[in-house]
């Protein structure tokens, strides 16, 4: 008996050590990109451990960052967090926690790794949030944890055109005051906020060396190449978004420091306009209905499907001949096309905007005039939009490295474009009003099936009421169709100017 004891002890120790180290080994080596905790006190990093494809946080780190009291209970296989008399209890391998007696679900189980406890990132907002004295907001796409009511607008930067001129757009949502300063070789954007959630383009394009975070948490820097001229900046706030457009012409002389120039096309030396090498933009025109689906049929026999196709063809030839843009029609003959096929045509061709053409019908002959619709998301849509924003996935890219992409459900494609679609509907209304009568409800927001699936600014034009005898007669004339087509083209020109700072009104 006695001689075997040391061996048993030794082997037990080895086994214990092994058991202790086993779960630690893969965990310790598999660190994910850290989250950042934003609070009034500044920024702190939250280390992430990746285990089984799940992002976890060590409970010790949580306790330190949030000043919590944690008591592990190895017998019961769980832990208790106490904060100001309120408690969170969780157990190993359980995807849930008891928060002040209420059970909340977690996306993955709590993991016990030796003496360490690891909790899913969502533990912070779901379990700790309800007992904490400040709001805890998780923004997984940006890898941010926000403590308290901080203003952290989303800023997404994209380079629209390599140029020259090189053009970059910064979309700030919700809207915030933005000031810019331009000095040698860079443009600094300062957003009135506590911090920024940024999505920045990865690589140098055209005259932009890179776009990176500034020294302060509320600034972004656009670094320019040596060949860049004096940047022009335009700031537009519409609805609940602020758009900052930075256009950099090629430089011809040594750069001189200048202050902010909010209006485009202002300062002195005109730089020669180089030949544009950007790929032409695509506009999608959707002639409503078709085939067996006649749409509205007037008493005089005019069918909506004919009128929409006729006007769409006129719009196409005007755009192609005058603007040199690519125009795709969702149908160019009399055939039935489903709404999803129409949206797919626009999405797959990466159209920069979609205009759907229709003619209206009312239950009496009285209503008359054109109407412009843009999409309305219901509350569920808003919630889903936020959920979609959280659904970022990491994909490997050719040549090594990874890239995060956002996944937006097909039927919510319109969500990020509603504000721009409102602007598009507005200019369509204004241009149409110059040439044809408008209805008493000239611009409306409604849940429109086609528009909701469009991943670009999109609007639907009801040109006239075919149930109104006079309107039906008018709508059949060349003058009406040409006027509507021209108004739509004018609206497209204006909309592009507004969003891209290409032309001044």
């Amino acid at each position, binding site marked *: 008996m006695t001689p075997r004891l040391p061996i048993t002890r030794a082997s037990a120790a080895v086994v214990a050590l092994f058991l202790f180290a086993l779960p630690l080994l893969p965990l310790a080596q598999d660190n994910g990109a850290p989250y950042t905790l934003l609070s009034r006190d500044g920024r702190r990093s939250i280390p992430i451990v990746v285990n089984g494809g799940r992002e976890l946080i060590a409970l010790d780190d949580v306790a330190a960052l949030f000043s919590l009291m944690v008591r592990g209970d190895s017998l019961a296989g769980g832990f208790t967090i106490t904060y100001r008399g309120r408690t969170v209890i969780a157990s190993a391998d359980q995807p849930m926690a008891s928060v002040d007696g209420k059970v909340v679900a977690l996306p993955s189980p709590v993991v016990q790794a030796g003496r360490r406890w690891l909790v899913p990132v969502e533990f912070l907002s779901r379990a700790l949030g309800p007992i904490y004295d400040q709001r805890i907001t998780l923004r997984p796409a940006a890898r941010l944890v926000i403590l308290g009511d901080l203003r952290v607008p989303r800023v997404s930067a994209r380079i629209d055109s390599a140029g020259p001129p090189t053009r970059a757009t910064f979309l700030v949502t919700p809207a915030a005051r933005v000031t810019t300063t331009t000095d040698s070789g860079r443009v600094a954007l300062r957003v009135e906020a506590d911090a920024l959630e940024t999505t920045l383009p990865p690589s140098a394009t055209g005259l932009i060396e890179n776009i990176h975070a500034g020294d302060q948490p509320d600034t972004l820097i656009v670094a320019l190449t040596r060949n860049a001229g004096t940047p022009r900046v335009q700031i537009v706030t519409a609805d609940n978004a602020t758009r900052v457009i930075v256009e950099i012409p090629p430089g011809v002389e040594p750069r001189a420091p200048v202050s902010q120039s909010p209006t485009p096309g202002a300062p002195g030396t005109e730089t020669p306009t180089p030949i544009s090498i950007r790929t032409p933009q695509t506009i999608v025109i959707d002639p409503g209905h078709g085939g067996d689906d006649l749409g509205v049929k007037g008493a005089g026999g005019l069918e909506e499907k004919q009128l929409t196709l006729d006007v769409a063809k006129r719009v196409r030839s005007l755009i192609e001949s005058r603007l040199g843009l690519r125009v795709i029609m969702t149908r160019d003959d009399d055939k039935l096309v489903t709404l999803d096929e129409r949206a797919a045509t626009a999405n797959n061709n990466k159209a920069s905007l979609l205009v759907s053409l229709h003619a*209206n019908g009312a239950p*009496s002959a009285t*209503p008359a005039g054109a*109407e412009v619709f843009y999409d309305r998301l219901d509350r569920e*849509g808003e919630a889903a939009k936020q959920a979609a924003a959280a659904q970022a996935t990491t994909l490997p890219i050719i040549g090594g490295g990874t890239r995060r992409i956002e996944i937006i459900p097909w039927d919510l494609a319109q969500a990020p474009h509603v504000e721009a679609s409102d602007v598009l509907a507005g200019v369509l209304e204004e241009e149409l009003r110059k040439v044809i009568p408008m209805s008493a409800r000239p611009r409306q927001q409604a849940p*429109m*099936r086609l528009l909701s699936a469009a991943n670009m600014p999109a609007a*639907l034009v009801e040109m006239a*009421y075919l149930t109104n005898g006079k309107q039906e007669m008018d709508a059949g004339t060349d003058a009406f169709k040409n006027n509507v087509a021209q108004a739509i083209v004018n609206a497209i020109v204006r909309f592009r100017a507004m969003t891209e700072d290409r032309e001044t009104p």
Partner: protein
Amino acid sequence: MTRNRRILVAVGGALALVAVVWGINAFGSKPAPAAPTTTATAAPTETAHITATLFYASSDGQALVGVKRDVPLASGVVEQGRQILLTELQAAPQPYIKVIPEGTALRAFYVTDRGDAFVDLSPEVSRAHPGGSLNELMTVYALVNAVTTNLPAVQRVQILVDGKEVDALAGHVDIRRPLTRDVSLVRERDSTQDPKLKTKSK
């Protein structure tokens, strides 16, 4: 025994009547009917009515108007909803215009625990639809508003056609998901009509 039971049924029925009418007219102008007495004998569903706000196009076709109409009283939210919809599908009272296509029948009506109502209509609602965004918005929101205005328990309405979810009735309005009440097309009061016909909109 049978006599006692009959009295019980009568009292119960009358109480149910009061409860339903009170519930439906909670924000309305009508006072609740007189207190029940044990002499009430007729089955309440045969004679009793509630006043419900139903939606039609105004005589000029420009807007929806809410019109108070008598709807047979039924017991329970689902039965009452069915009665409201059956009346909504009937011809409109003068001088209003019906916005549900002719021949449309109610296949089913049910309400989930979450307060979502499902209105399942026969294919005519789509097949016989005259088209146009205005007509289609009116059809959709006459149904959605009729259910949500009169049944406080219902927050959202999903329209089904022939038992199935569809994209749209006539190619414009997205009805793949339940819709909430929307009075943007509803005219406060049809000025050309009897001022007593009030619309019920917030």
